[in-house]
């Protein structure tokens, strides 16, 4: 261990300083200030900024749209985590078989995750397009539907559409983590239990799953956090519509602040959102601590 002289402590702080300054200016101060803003009637256009106590929270509490917003967020987050997680797990198992094209295919899948959300949103808008989209054309041809579905305009189908696009974008990310986990599975143990008569499913549930469980838990938590923050795809595809059917906290806070200019109300909604996110991050931190 490095000797702790006064000199090196100075150097240590000097090195953190740039990070700390940027962090304080762009994250810490705005966060603290937003909590304060949630108790004011601050507005982006009108120069008012008075303390109003809990008024914003009470208004939100009475607003019939708040509870559905919470449910929609939970629905979006739940399916946008579970679906790509499941696909990622299966795809990781397949790619782990190391067949001829597996490395190439793995790299190609990860492209979904790396390209801009806006491109993904446009792509799925085009696929789901009611009149000329390829999805309706395919379903028509296969005889599954006989009239076109306007996917992004339906209250149920719009959520399905957004979750599908999010799944397409994110399942490679889950795959990458799970493949990392699979490398830690002791092959001798799999062989040994097979000699004892275990079949594939037993090997999977008794050896593979327990070994990669920490990774699985980690990505479920991280995935949930990132979906709670997610903005891009919903913004591009439905903008929270139709009739708020896909409106999550990320969309609603943005709209309240920058379309309705009601910063106070947006901040109050954002604080509730932060509490939701905070509770998941708490689980993440506790999980990290247990691992170490």
């Amino acid at each position, binding site marked *: 261990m490095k000797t702790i002289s006064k000199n090196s402590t100075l*150097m240590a702080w000097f090195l953190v300083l740039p990070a700390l300054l940027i962090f304080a200016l762009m994250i810490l101060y*705005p966060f603290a200030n937003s909590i304060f*803003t949630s108790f004011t009637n601050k507005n982006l256009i009108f120069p008012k900024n008075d303390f109003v106590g809990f008024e914003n929270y009470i208004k939100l509490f009475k607003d019939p749209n708040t509870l559905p917003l919470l449910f929609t967020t939970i629905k979006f987050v739940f399916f946008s985590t579970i679906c790509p997680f499941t*696909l990622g797990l299966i795809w990781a198992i397949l790619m782990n078989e190391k067949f001829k094209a597996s490395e190439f295919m793995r790299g190609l899948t990860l492209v979904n995750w*790396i390209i801009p959300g806006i491109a993904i949103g446009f*792509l799925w808008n085009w696929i789901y397009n009611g*009149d000329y989209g390829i999805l309706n054309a395919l379903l028509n041809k296969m005889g599954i539907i006989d009239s076109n579905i306007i996917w992004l305009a339906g209250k149920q189908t719009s959520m399905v559409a957004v979750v599908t696009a999010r799944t397409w974008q994110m399942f490679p990310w889950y795959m*990458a983590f799970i493949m990392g986990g699979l490398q830690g599975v002791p092959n001798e143990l799999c062989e040994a239990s097979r000699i004892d008569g275990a079949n*594939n499913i037993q090997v999977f549930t008794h050896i593979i799953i327990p070994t990669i469980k920490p990774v699985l838990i980690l990505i479920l938590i991280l995935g949930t956090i990132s979906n709670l923050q997610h903005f891009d795809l919903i913004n591009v595809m439905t903008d929270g519509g139709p009739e708020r059917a896909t409106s999550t906290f990320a969309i609603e806070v943005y709209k309240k602040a920058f379309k309705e200019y009601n910063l106070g109300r947006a901040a109050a909604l954002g604080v509730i959102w932060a509490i939701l996110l905070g509770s998941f991050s708490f689980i993440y931190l506790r999980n990290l601590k247990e691992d170490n």
Partner: protein
Amino acid sequence: MFQKSLGFRIFFWTFIILIGFFAFFPQLWMISTSLKPETEMYKISFFQNFDLSNLNRILHNSDFLGYLRNGMMVAIISSLLSTAVSAFAGYSFSKFRYKGRTQVMAIILISQAFPQGLLLVSLYPMLQNMGMIDKLPSIILAYVALTLPIGTWTLKAYFDQIPNSIMEAACIDGASDFTTMIKIVMPLAFPGMTTIAIYSFVWAWNDLLYALTLISTTAKRTLASGMIFTFTGEGGNDWIGMMAASVIASIPVAIMFVFLQRFFVAGLTAGAVKG
């Protein structure tokens, strides 16, 4: 890992076809659409009649070129700044012990869970007061701040693996703390630093929310927010143009990724797991 039983083969082929189609068909559809002549926009055809005129049209659209240029500049500067700032902080967290260290580390980590929309509620008026709205440096600073948590924690994990004895040896040889860090330890953590450089580049290149909120003039827009404005209203039905722009927007990150995916993915997963 698995026995190649009949059951496993059925499982393998079913999902390789189903998930493979789900993963790759949309990619191909995007490229195929971007290469169609405009007259065939609404025809269901797949890689027939190649026509580069739409890619050309987008690449000669002066607004779009501006978005590309701004986006590239913002992404490169954010990436370099974020890597440098994260490396310094990560080095400090890894190689020094001092009061307040764990608290600072914890709060940087937790900040990932601060809702970005909530930050913007205060960031916008703050930057407005500073005269920084609609200025590219403000989004660059925001991207550096937002990529700091992953950056510092990942690089700290890399520096942790470099034994202190190397630094001590350098010290004995008369190198100062700073030279030891720059010339000896950081080159050893090069894979980690590349990971963070790519991560921050991709973040800045792909970001929509901050660019949409903090930038308001066309000439200053970066890629994602610029594309939104190009293809709403009149441009809203120009699907070929949209796909062409999407392909162009995806190329830089996709290329970068193909070359560097191996240690990028390993670096990111390692950082998150070791945290």
